[in-house]
């Protein structure tokens, strides 16, 4: 498979064209926005959190297939998770992408950090300039969780 085929897997194009949970939340929620100034990709995230658990999420934004698919897949895995689990997922995802997560990286194999569809984004690693596209929703998630 060429690296382009690996990059643009079917599941990614599917999430890009049919993003899950697109829109905004109406009830009480946390809101965060991310911007990638170098390419102009935008991502915004609403989270409903009850008793430390993410009970709902909604996304908006525009950008390349990678950033939008990453965001869509992200909402798929974080809803139903606790804040701590969402942070674990974030670290796991970033480690998979080869992004430095600082001093205290989590054990990527620990239970709870199952990435599912997101693993399709592994092909992005071969395109260093696109890694920040894949990462944009996750940086935005971290901002949101920091407000919780």
């Amino acid at each position, binding site marked *: 498979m*060429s*690296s*382009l*085929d690996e*990059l*643009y897997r*079917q599941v990614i*194009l599917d999430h890009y*064209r049919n993003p899950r949970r697109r829109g905004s939340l109406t009830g009480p929620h946390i809101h965060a926005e991310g911007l990638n100034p*170098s*390419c*102009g*990709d*935008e991502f915004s995230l609403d989270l409903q959190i009850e008793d430390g658990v993410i009970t709902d999420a909604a996304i908006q934004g*525009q*950008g*390349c*297939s*990678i950033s*939008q698919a990453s965001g869509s897949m992200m909402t798929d895995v974080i809803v139903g998770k606790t804040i701590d689990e969402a942070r674990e997922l974030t670290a796991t995802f970033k480690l998979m992408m080869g992004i430095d997560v600082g001093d205290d990286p989590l054990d990527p194999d620990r239970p709870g950090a199952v990435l599912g569809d997101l693993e399709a984004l592994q092909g992005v690693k071969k*395109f260093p*300039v*696109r890694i920040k*596209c894949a990462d944009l929703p996750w940086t935005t998630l971290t901002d949101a969780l920091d407000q919780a």
Partner: protein
Amino acid sequence: MTDLSHLREDFPILSREVNGHPLVYLDSAATTQKPIQVLDAVDAFYRTENANVHRGAYTLSAEATDAYEGARAKVASFINASSPNEIVFSRGATSSLNHIAYGWGLNHLSEGDRVVLTVMEHHSNVVPWQLVARHKGIELVYLTMDDRYEVDLSGLDDLIDERVKIISVSGMSNVTGTLGPVRTMVEAARSVGALVVVDGAQLVPHSPTDVQDLDADFLVFSGHKMLAPTGIGAMWGKPERLEEMEPTEGGGEMIADVGLYESRWAPVPQKFEAGTPPIAQAVGFGAAVDYLTAVGMETVRDHEQEITGYAMKRLAEVPDLIVYGPSDPENRGGAVSFSLADIHAHDIATILDQHGIEVRAGHHCAKPLMRHLQVPATARASFYLYNTTDEVDSLVDGLFDARSLFGLDS
């Protein structure tokens, strides 16, 4: 067809490969590649004449000064200025526009005055005026674009009154290739005594420019977009405008005398060139305009029109492709922005890059225009004298590959 392919061997980088394919460089609107003639001029300067300029009584410094001032004269005659003193060297178009906005604007504009811009301006011709507006309470007014991607002049007469002090317009859009309506602007401005600033970042490199004929007040351009090194650009100004403009940077070289509390300025153009200037880069700029003059700017323009025409024709063969810009190559420059089906511009650039084809994707430092066009981003191919129709063919092949990767039939 003007065949300039023999020039390609002057550009060492064009023989490199990218991702296993020969480099197809289609991003000259962002920055151009450099011919050996320019690289050698810069190198020779450092190897034989390097010294600081203007302040030395010794041979080496005199040679460096001659080289630097010689470059000023070359750039002046390239745009048919009446004197080298009308050329102020700067870091580039952006820094020239900031010079004008601060040096002229901050000192001559006041509350209620208006600056007229267009929605197609590059951020470099928007943000400096916004910064001045913060200090001076001036108003920015925009001309919009019509559906043929031309600046909409229908409201111009109503817009132009004595509140208008400056009209600042791009000579050629870096997104749509639209030619700015400079002549109309100059006439409109004269009727109310307003100044016309022309952002020539895309105009000067790509077509013959004659400032006496243009009759604007200021013209700015960047060296790196016309074969010269990075770090150098120019501001041309009418002598009386340069006289009335205040310096924006203080330091060495730009003074006649410095006291503890007050100073007096050196004559134009030194008044605007504080500190050690980009000496070697100016020398390279001189070599670049020599190169362009030898090719002939008419030839450059002809070649680009032909290649742009060819590109428009071939791009029309790609289903779901929309070009944002005038369709007649006579009436536009060689920056061709487009979208392709629902494939994001960034994805297009990545896919083309895998074919060795380098195009830009994004907002092209023209967010107001993106909003006007209602697109978040476009892909852009832009051409220069070294590009060929074969490269256009590669581009089109790459776009078909993008379609297939995104599951669209060809």
